[in-house]
């Protein structure tokens, strides 16, 4: 009734091609942004920021990055933890070795380093595909685990292999309280999400999708697979690298290579599978599912006033979380993003479905 595009006529190509062609969608997005930038900082508690919102936003960015590669270009990667680690350690080295380094510049340089590594590990994708590629990218994971814990130079010769960063500030504005960190992450992620959305709507994104859907056919119509696959690896690793730098600098503050182990890669892959492959929106849903749900499940018994031991609560968390993943994959193999769009379709007809 309220949500329908009747009467919204597009008279220009520009108007027809915008990201959210329906007026109500635009309102909705502005409302979400308004709540995220103004509403939440006014009301949320420190716990909500530090333990839930900041990790959620940062991992959303990593999920968007991985989604560009897996969801849009169809190249399965298990090396995202490694690219996060490269981003984090590269940004760290730029930050501590160059005095007066700008934080955002360090993040971008970290992302660029991750991009280079991503392209190198993306080269096998030219010859192998599918599960074989996944195994090849897994090599990136083990390589990064090894190099960051073995080569002391990367950790600035820290005795324990754990590094930490000083107080952060951007252009003279300090980024130390939870609210500041949250807004900082949110700003970066909003910008990157917008870029990603536009990238996948443009010719690069279309060439990725063509490769994903059928690479031989794509080649026949004039898309260069080398170019398409490597750009997908490059852009994806850049995003993941920046997310890794943010995860390390803003969320953890001090970290060791273990923070980016193979579990992180698998986590990110689950996020985009559950959230929805080939959907920027789905990356956010998936990140929310993987980051927030375990914490909710863990704290559930406590809120409901059920006395239960810590170990039992944790075991319950694993069981329920695992079965929910299975449940969602059976009910909606295309992920939460698909549920979202089905919901919107229904809303268009509501309340007269016939």
């Amino acid at each position, binding site marked *: 009734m309220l949500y329908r595009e009747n009467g919204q006529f597009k008279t220009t190509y520009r108007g027809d091609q915008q990201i959210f062609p329906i007026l109500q969608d635009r309102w909705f997005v502005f409302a979400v942004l308004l709540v995220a930038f103004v509403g939440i900082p006014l009301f949320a508690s420190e716990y909500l920021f530090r333990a839930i919102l900041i990790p959620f936003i940062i991992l959303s960015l990593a999920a968007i990055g991985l989604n560009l590669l897996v969801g849009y270009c169809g190249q399965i990667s298990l090396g995202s933890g490694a690219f996060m680690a490269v981003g984090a350690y590269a940004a760290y080295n730029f930050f501590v070795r160059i005095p007066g380094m700008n934080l955002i510049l360090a993040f971008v340089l970290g992302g660029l380093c991750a991009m280079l590594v991503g392209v190198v590990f993306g080269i096998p994708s030219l010859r192998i595909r599918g599960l074989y590629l996944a195994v090849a990218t897994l090599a990136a994971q083990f390589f990064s685990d090894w190099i960051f814990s073995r080569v002391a130079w990367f950790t600035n010769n820290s005795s324990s292999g754990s590094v930490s960063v000083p107080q952060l500030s951007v252009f003279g504005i300090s980024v130390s309280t939870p609210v500041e960190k949250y807004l900082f992450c949110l700003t970066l992620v909003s910008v990157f999400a917008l870029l990603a959305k536009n990238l996948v709507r443009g010719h690069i994104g279309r060439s990725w999708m063509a490769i994903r859907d059928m690479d031989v056919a794509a080649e026949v119509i004039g898309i260069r697979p080398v170019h398409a696959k490597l750009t997908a690896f490059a852009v994806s690793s850049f995003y993941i690298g920046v997310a890794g730098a943010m995860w390390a600098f803003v969320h953890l503050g001090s970290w060791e290579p273990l923070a980016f182990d193979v579990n992180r890669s698998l986590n990110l892959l689950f996020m985009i599978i559950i959230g929805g492959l080939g959907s920027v929106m789905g990356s956010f849903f998936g990140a929310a599912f993987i980051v927030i749900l375990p914490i909710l499940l863990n*704290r559930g018994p406590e809120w409901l006033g059920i006395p239960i031991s810590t*170990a039992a609560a944790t075991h319950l968390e694993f069981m329920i979380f695992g079965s929910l993943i299975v449940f969602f994959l059976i009910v909606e193999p295309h992920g939460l993003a698909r549920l979202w769009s089905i919901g919107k379709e229904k809303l268009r007809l509501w309340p007269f479905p016939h």
Partner: protein
Amino acid sequence: MRQTNRFKLAVAATAAAGALAAALAPSPALAQAREQFFPMLVYRTGAYAPNGVPFANGMHDYYKMLNARDGGINGVKITTEECETGYATDRGVECYERLKGKGPTGATVFQPLSTGITFALTDKVPIDKIPLITAGYGRSESANGKIFPWNFIMGGSYWVAADILVQHVGEKLGGMDKLKGKKIALVYHDSPYGKEPIALLEERSKQLGFDLQLIAVTHPGVEQKAAWLQIRRDRPDFVFLWGWGVMNSTSIKEAVATGYPRDKMYGVWWSGAEPDVVPAGDGAKGYHALTFLAPAGRGKVHQDIIKYVHDKGQGTGPKDEIGQVLYNRGMVSAMMAVEAVRVAQERFGKKSLTGTQVRWGMENLNIDAARIKAIGFEGFMQPLSTSCTDHMGGNTAQIETWDGSNWTVAPKVYQADMQILKPLIDKFAAKYAAEKKITPRDCAKDVE
């Protein structure tokens, strides 16, 4: 029809998520009660649970005993809440955020029992003004209280442990100069925990001329064939084991398989508990480990725990766990926090204290032999006294040996050589301060 159901489901799920998100806001602080809140970061699941569980139970039982016997600390009731970290740093940070604001005055002290979590929390505690006790683990350089005002590495650091092990093997060979040309292999858990002793061992190997081999074992440590192949090839004179959880028992089993003599193996104090040797069966006989603060056994305090807690059916774990190494160590860790609160109460009054006040207590702790006896810990720890500059307070340990069913503790008490440790602590602390742009605290000025 199917589609409609699915949509309903989605709406319901969204609504439920929204409701839960609203509930996520922390519950309002309780009315000001005479309570002292001790948060507990524990791990009862995962690869390290066999070691995490007895430690947590020991802490719990001690708090429960004080509540039942004395009504808390001088009448201020102890409240606790557990949070499961699974030994994972990110989960530990979430737990910290979850628990730090609870209780009438916020969290009293955090004891994460994980060097990785300690590293992450070291950056957070100065902002929230909550002390961090890391009894026998964590950053070795945090013994320097001027640069790490909120870290308390009570009773000993990994540098203390490594130094004592070097002293012991030197003595066994008949003098420290005999170590020249000998080979010592460090088999370590590949994490900040396992890497901590390297700095000191390198320093010592330069000074004494022994050859140090570093052999890393990746988390969780069930796969060590490569490490022990290297040991079989190089035949080091001694093996120092820096493992945790399932890695320890695996190492001992691998030593049996490799034929490496167990009496040439020395574990750090976290590699010297029952769960580490029992799975290896008879093969573990003759294995040595360090012990600090609390060897196995039962004393007066255990009788009180049995009487006031376990006999009333309030015990946290099984009764036969009482007196095990890790149980005792958990108990002693809890005791140190409680003693600090006691000291602080003398100055600030017998009420709920804030983190800053408790820190004062920790910096003025003096647990001497008489006090150890008074609280029933006789034979379970060495005296400990801290100051604003020295947050370690003790640097002694003994060597214990597994005889197949019990740990026998050799009487000699070793003391780490502070001539070597002190410069190292100051060097690394200064590096940390430079990285973090910290101005060292002026200990002459008493804070609060």
